[in-house]
């Protein structure tokens, strides 16, 4: 006895179902493109933030060392920063420092490295796209060294540049210069 009782129920017509599916599809396309865009921006923002952090760390490190320089070798090529600093630290006994860009055979990434005589090729950072040194007023008290650093990761590129006027550089009119406690002068 498999008599089935059929209730006369009002269901959806095919047209209604098709309409709903089409409308949902259109809404879905908008929603997903929205989420997709948001995700892309999020990833882009994260990459940039990371690059900026790396770049500012490297630039900070270089400018701190450079501010203490008392002689700077001519920067040729302009991708090597080579100078003698005035003060030692406990960790770094040597006062001659190089900062330079170097390719790494094993990796596609470009590195920024620093060396002093007994330690070479210390890695300062990666993702380097460009590293340029330019000097103005070469050899005078207000010698100015401009550093430009470009980092790239994927399609994201960030460029930072700043300039440094070493505090212990030069001898002419040395005593009349500003003093803001950065480094104590050692030249009388």
């Amino acid at each position, binding site marked *: 006895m498999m008599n089935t009782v059929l209730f006369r129920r*009002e269901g959806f017509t095919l047209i209604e179902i098709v309409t709903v599916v089409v409308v949902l599809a259109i809404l879905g396309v908008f929603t997903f493109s929205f989420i997709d865009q948001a995700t892309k*921006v999020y990833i882009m*923002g994260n990459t940039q933030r990371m690059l900026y952090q790396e770049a500012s760390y490297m630039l900070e490190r270089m400018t701190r060392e450079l501010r203490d320089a008392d002689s700077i070798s001519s920067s040729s090529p302009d991708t090597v920063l080579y100078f003698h600093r005035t003060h030692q630290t406990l960790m770094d006994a040597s006062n001659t420092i190089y900062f330079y860009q170097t390719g790494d055979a094993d990796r596609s990434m470009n590195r920024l490295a620093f060396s002093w005589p007994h330690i070479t090729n210390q890695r300062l950072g990666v993702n380097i796209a460009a590293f340029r040194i330019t000097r103005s007023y070469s050899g005078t008290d207000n010698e*100015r060294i401009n550093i430009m650093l470009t980092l790239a990761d994927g399609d994201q590129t960030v460029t930072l540049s700043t300039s440094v006027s070493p505090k212990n550089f030069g001898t002419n009119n040395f005593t009349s210069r*500003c003093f803001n406690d950065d480094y104590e002068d050692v030249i009388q």
Partner: protein
Amino acid sequence: MIRLGNKGFSLIELVAFIIIGGIILPASLIAFTAVLESFSRPDYQTQARFIAEAKMEDITSQSFNSLPTQNPNFRPVRNDSTNPFMGSGTYRFGTSVYDNYQWKWIICNTGSSQINLPCSEVHNETLSDYNYYRRIEVTVRMPDNSTYDVSTLVSLRPKAL
């Protein structure tokens, strides 16, 4: 077919719903996009910091008694006349990265009793040791019109006295 007496939405209600939805949706989209925009620009503060640092280096590298003239009004950083020619046809901060950044710098004389005050609050005339200290204030205005301030206090080198 049994009708239970629910007559559905009227046209007016439907139109009202569509209009309200039409206002709320774009508004939320705009707000969302603005947040995304600000998240995707982490560079302003970092750029401004190094711009300000570079200007501060320029000023403090000069002689205490002949500091550069101050520039109390904002002007564009890019291709500013104080960014010297560096050879190879470029200025410092000469690329389009530095568009829409502006800077100003203020230099004032101050004394030991007022060394913690900003230049705007220093009263020169009451100082006896006036001229022994100078305060330098560098302000960088970022493309979103917020500002980044750096200030320092300089004196003559101790060994010069």
